């Protein structure tokens, strides 16, 4: 069970974990700032008497390997591995610090934390924000120190100077900021290019880069949860990213295959299980712990497994962990596909959306009746049976649009024109030119089929019931009027009299369906949905 520490809180380490093989993860979210995160190994007098115990980017390892800097991974800005029972007796304190490279102040930190992970479970999390600091350019985050036994203290103190001053205050020598201490081997490669060593590999295959595995081998599985990788709040809500140790059933199979990223439609048929490719700095071997929920696992929000029961994954504890894959996807433009059935539009410029299609929004947004001008006369015409009732979304913020769990498709027009069945329009940029057209035929109930022609530079969101079919028009192409979703403008569209499908009579229909015939050249297409309205 992870304990949330507050500033100044101290505790014997044994109260948190019996393990001595610790993973220390530090996250700092502060756009525009670059941080040097380092660990000072100090003696009994709080001095850096041995430069080789200053673990930083140029010296990622102490001589005997008890302290290792692992670099950025698993959602942490930087991380360390500390094997406490190998730390020499002369080292009394391990102080984890961060210093700003360049200009800036610690008060710009939006959020940050330091967490301790032992045996694959987070045991401590100390969260802080810039409000805890002033204009300091360095911060001392947390100390691991000996006082009889190993203890941990959440320090959270700012330090006025930069890294160099911090080193000097600890009695270290700085040649040229931020040069390596004299003892540092000059040929050390930066850690970014060194894949960090796997944690506690299976006993039979010892990782060569490791000092002898601790005894008893502490199963150092990945920190099995980050909760939300993005910034945790200063006081974490109860259980955010926490994990109940006791109710956590161990995995039956040592290696649950990771979920496949990507949507099923991109993987037609029954794809074989694919390893999604761990980033090289992911030092945790996937056969330990729960890979699919490891922090840093490249399962971005909005990506889902194939949904095949044969590839099902167990659910991890913690609400946020369980819901990680449903998180908001990062905005990638004006229109962002959140998942198959949800689209996010980032306002500034106005957008039109089907009335009532907003499911949620963030920001200051107003929804107004859209019915002015010629559009209204057509769309509101009850006789057409094709009412497209629109609203205007204006303001600043993000709006999530969805309608009746229909599949949504973002179409960037890029100057082209598209004809969309009025029933299949979800939203479009207000800057697009729109025109209502009608395909007339006595065979069509109501005397004609209304559709919306959208053209210009912008985006229209088309919705379909079920996975649509896009037919390239290279000969005469026929589509049921009730199933056709959209087609490119410029084709000759006529009502087919030859293909008449007898359908079951439903209320309001004539009992006969009308097929539309599309004649077009290369490049034209028709989109059909597997659902007849």
């Amino acid at each position: 069970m992870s304990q949330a520490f507050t500033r100044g809180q101290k505790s014997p380490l044994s109260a948190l974990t019996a393990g001595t093989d610790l993973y220390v993860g530090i996250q700092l979210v502060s756009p525009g700032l670059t941080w040097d995160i380092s660990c000072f190994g100090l003696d009994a007098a709080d001095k850096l008497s041995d430069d080789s115990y200053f673990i930083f980017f140029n010296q990622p390892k102490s001589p005997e390997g008890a302290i290792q800097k692992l670099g950025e991974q698993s959602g942490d800005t930087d991380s360390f591995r500390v094997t406490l029972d190998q730390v020499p007796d002369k080292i009394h304190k391990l102080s984890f610090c961060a210093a700003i490279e360049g200009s800036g102040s610690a008060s710009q930190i939006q959020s940050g934390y330091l967490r301790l992970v032992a045996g694959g479970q987070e045991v401590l999390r100390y969260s802080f924000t810039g409000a805890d600091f002033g204009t300091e350019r360095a911060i001392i985050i947390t100390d691991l120190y000996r006082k009889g036994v190993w203890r941990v203290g959440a320090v959270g103190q700012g330090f006025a100077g930069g890294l160099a001053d911090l080193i000097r205050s600890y009695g270290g020598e700085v040649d040229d900021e931020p040069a390596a201490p004299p003892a540092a081997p000059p040929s050390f490669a930066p850690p970014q290019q060194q894949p960090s060593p796997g944690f506690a590999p299976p006993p039979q295959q010892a990782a060569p880069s490791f000092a002898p595995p601790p005894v008893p081998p502490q199963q150092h599985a990945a920190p099995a949860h980050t909760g939300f990788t993005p910034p945790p709040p200063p006081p974490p809500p109860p259980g955010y990213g926490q994990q109940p140790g006791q109710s956590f059933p161990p995995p039956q199979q040592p290696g649950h295959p990771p979920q496949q990223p990507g949507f099923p439609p991109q993987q037609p048929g029954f794809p074989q299980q694919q390893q999604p490719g761990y980033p090289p700095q992911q030092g945790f071997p996937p056969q330990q712990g729960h890979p699919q929920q490891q922090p840093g696992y490249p399962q971005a929000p909005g990506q889902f497994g194939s949904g095949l029961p044969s590839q099902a994954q167990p659910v991890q504890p913690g609400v946020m962990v369980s819901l990680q894959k449903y998180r908001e996807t990062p905005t990638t433009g004006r229109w962002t596909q959140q998942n198959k059935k949800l689209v996010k539009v980032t306002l500034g410029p106005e957008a039109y959306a089907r009335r009532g299609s907003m499911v949620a929004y963030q920001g200051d947004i107003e929804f107004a009746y859209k019915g002015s001008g010629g559009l209204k006369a057509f769309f509101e015409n009850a006789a057409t049976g094709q009412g497209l009732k629109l609203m205007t979304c204006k303001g600043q913020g993000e709006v999530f649009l969805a309608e009746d769990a229909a599949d949504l498709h973002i179409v960037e027009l890029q100057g082209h024109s598209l004809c969309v069945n009025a029933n299949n329009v979800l939203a479009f940029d207000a800057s697009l030119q729109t025109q209502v057209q009608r395909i007339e035929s006595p065979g069509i109930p109501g005397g004609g089929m209304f559709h919306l022609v959208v053209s210009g530079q912008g985006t229209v969101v088309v919705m379909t019931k079920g996975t649509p079919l896009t037919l390239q028009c290279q000969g005469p192409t026929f589509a049921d009027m009730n199933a056709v979703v959209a087609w490119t403008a410029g084709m000759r569209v006529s009502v087919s009299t030859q293909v008449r499908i007898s359908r079951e009579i439903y209320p309001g229909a004539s009992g006969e369906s009308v097929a539309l015939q599309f004649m077009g050249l290369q490049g034209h297409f028709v989109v059909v949905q597997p659902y007849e309205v």
Partner: protein
Amino acid sequence: MQSPLLQHYGQTQIRDRMSTHGYKMAKVMMAPGQDLMARAGSMVAYEGLIDFNPNPPQMGQMARSWATGEGVPLMVATGQGELYLADYGKDVVVLQLAGEALSVNGKNILAFDASLQWGIERVKGVSMLSGMGMFNVVLRGHGWVALTSKGTPVVLDTREAPTFVDTDALVAFTEGLSVQPRRTARLGGLFGRGSGEAFQLGFSGQGFVMVQPSEDERPNFSARG
């Protein structure tokens, strides 16, 4: 016989209390002493000896909400075996509470451990909008919960910005958020010329809101302009 149906859709090997079978079915491992509260009528299959009691004694607290024709019809499942639950093809989201508290729209609850603390609450603010209530199940403690969502849901972080949600699309939210009703419609919107988005619930604070991509059409609560 050879078919992907046999290859890929068999029982999963996960022995956890709850897991999903595909997107739209929940699998629950039942054991003696681990009773399950499940939406009445949601059982699609089970193996083993499982009893369903549609009128458990614990339901006293729900009488109040049932009287209004609202609420969450639940049943208690006891026994041993594997139980499969689904709700009309809605997506199923399984999650494990680790001490958190979650408020779930009554329409979106599928099952939860009977060992969780739970209760029915009226969502504040909704009744102010329409005179009708919206009933949520509040779950708290350590245990498993299965929710349904019509379509793949999205989880919005209310720490980033205050989040406004169409009440018909609201699935769940964490306890401790401040809930404020919000009217976006002008007065004219109430007389047939509305944008369709007259009322929302605003959430702010430390937590999240889960939203489904569909505005449930079942007659539960409706405040359309």
